[in-house]
């Protein structure tokens, strides 16, 4: 059995399960955030005699409109707080705690072998420690709250192997951009993704979480990292990539899977009005470190708004003590609270029609940051370098002589 089959077999109390079977599993963790909680609580209210199956297994986050952004948003926050109080949900991460996917890992709420569901497609990120983690809708979540159970078709697993070693100035995000471009927007639809090979194995936990988050963009049901070599049996497909073919890349709109070499994109002289170091895939501690490295002693280009929203309160605090926040602030960045930030335009950083943003968030579909806004995606180095240059550039030029101590 693949890692995903092993976890689902355990969740279904079966000795073995295989790709294609429908199984009903017990949920170990159910995460609900403020963008979908309104619908979940509405649906829950329509269930006959509703009670929460296990309040210790439920986690609430306020991370999309944080602090509250409108009268309607705060109404949902209020109903979440009242619901949590009524049903004894104590794992409540209120405004300022950070993004669910990042905090769930920091707090050990998505440990190896658990079955984690969340009302967010990027719940795949919670697979970084070896959980089966996937996004579900509000109706299913209301049902999970009452029953603690959910059906799944056991997914086939695709194995991604990255061999070799990354060149200077090439980020884990660049690796993922290349993986996404190899699969396309539906190339891993309904599949589990496992990451293997020396490059992936060397990734830090936050880099692994970024890869698992972004696996969603090729349609993955879940994604995880294997600790040991699992052999080549039982996989639907094996994709092997040599690190030597990976350089800095930019995903051009309107798909996160449209990766192009940064040199090719830079040659088009694309001016940016906003640069965003935000989200569960792009505002981790290493991203803030790289951005500070590039921006220290430099200034954000005139006419560019640089938004920095660290992914969690813990990351914010570490970045403060390591001097990254000061370097970014001095360069002219707007330092925001730890939230989902400009990623989906929910609480900040909305673009005007025709404006261009470069971001390290996961998505660039049409309208993602505002109707008519144009979004390019890249590593934090690419975003920081563009903030200085006022246009999309090769970040390696801006890292020269500033190699990490």
């Amino acid at each position, binding site marked *: 059995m693949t890692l995903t089959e092993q976890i689902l077999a355990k969740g279904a109390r079966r000795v073995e399960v295989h790709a294609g079977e*429908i199984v009903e599993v017990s949920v170990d963790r159910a995460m609900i955030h403020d*963008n*979908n909680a*309104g*619908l979940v609580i*509405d*649906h829950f209210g*329509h*269930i*006959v*005699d509703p009670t929460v199956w296990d309040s210790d297994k439920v986690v609430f986050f306020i991370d999309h*409109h944080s602090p509250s952004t*409108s009268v*309607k*948003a705060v109404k*949902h926050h209020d109903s979440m707080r009242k619901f949590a109080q009524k049903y004894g949900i104590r794992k409540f991460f209120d405004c300022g705690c950070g993004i669910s996917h990042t905090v769930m890992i920091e707090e050990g709420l998505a440990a190896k072998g658990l079955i984690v569901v969340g*009302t*967010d*497609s990027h*719940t795949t990120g919670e697979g970084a420690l070896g959980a089966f983690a996937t*996004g*579900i*809708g*509000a*109706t*299913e979540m*209301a*049902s999970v709250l*009452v*029953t603690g159970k959910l*059906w799944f078709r056991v997914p086939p697993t695709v194995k991604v192997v990255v061999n070799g070693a990354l060149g200077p100035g090439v980020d884990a995000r660049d690796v993922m951009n290349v993986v996404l471009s190899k699969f396309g*927007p*539906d190339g891993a*639809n*309904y599949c589990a993704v496992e990451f293997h090979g020396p490059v992936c194995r060397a990734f830090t936990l936050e880099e692994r979480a970024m890869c698992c988050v972004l696996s969603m*963009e090729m*349609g993955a*049901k879940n994604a995880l990292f294997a600790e040991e070599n699992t052999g080549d049996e039982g996989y639907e497909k094996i994709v092997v990539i040599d690190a030597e073919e990976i350089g800095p890349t930019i995903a051009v709109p309107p*798909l996160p899977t449209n990766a192009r070499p940064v040199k090719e994109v830079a040659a088009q002289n694309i001016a940016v009005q906003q640069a965003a170091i935000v989200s569960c895939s792009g505002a981790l501690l290493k991203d803030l470190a790289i951005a500070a490295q590039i921006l220290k002693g430099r200034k954000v280009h005139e006419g560019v708004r640089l938004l920095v929203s660290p992914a969690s309160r813990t990351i914010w605090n570490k970045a403060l003590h390591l001097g990254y926040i000061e370097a970014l602030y001095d360069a002219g960045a707007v330092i925001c609270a730890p939230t989902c930030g400009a990623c*989906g*335009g*929910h609480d900040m950083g909305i673009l005007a029609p025709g404006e261009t943003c470069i971001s390290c968030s996961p*998505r660039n*579909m*049409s*309208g*993602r940051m505002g*109707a*008519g806004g144009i979004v390019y995606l890249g590593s934090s180095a690419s975003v920081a370098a563009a903030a200085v240059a006022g246009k999309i550039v090769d970040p390696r030029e801006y890292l020269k002589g500033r190699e990490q101590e």
Partner: protein
Amino acid sequence: MTGTAWKLGNNVATDEILPFQYMVLTDPAELGKHVLENVRPGFAQQLKPSDVIIAGDNMGYGSSREHAPLALKGAGVGAVIAKSFARIFYRNCINLGIPVIVCPQAADECAEGDVICVDIENGVIEDETTQKRYSFEPFPEFIQKYISKGGLIELLNEQRRKAL
């Protein structure tokens, strides 16, 4: 069920089906007023009850927001036919009782404005304008129950009422 066809392309994202600023809404009728508004301005006003959306590959790509299928339902969409679906969108539609049909040939050949008749139980799509018929694999029995009861909550409630 019979309605007019509205055609969409590949990889239509839930961000496009229901723009982020309306995610604070929960009422299907209110959500329905804004369905696809940036992609096809005025779409919600042109839709009639039981109309059919016909899309390409990977329909409902991206965000898990159930607001997107709920907006389609609120706007009166009777069924969604596509070459393929993104998985969360597909599940969300079933849980809300919206028929989602994988039929690449119909998705290719039916034209915008054609009158489409969908027979869920027998797995047949009929394009009344061109007089062409397409078959699709009927839902497995356990999914068929979601569609016929009108969604997951109704099905769950039926079980809970029996247990009381």
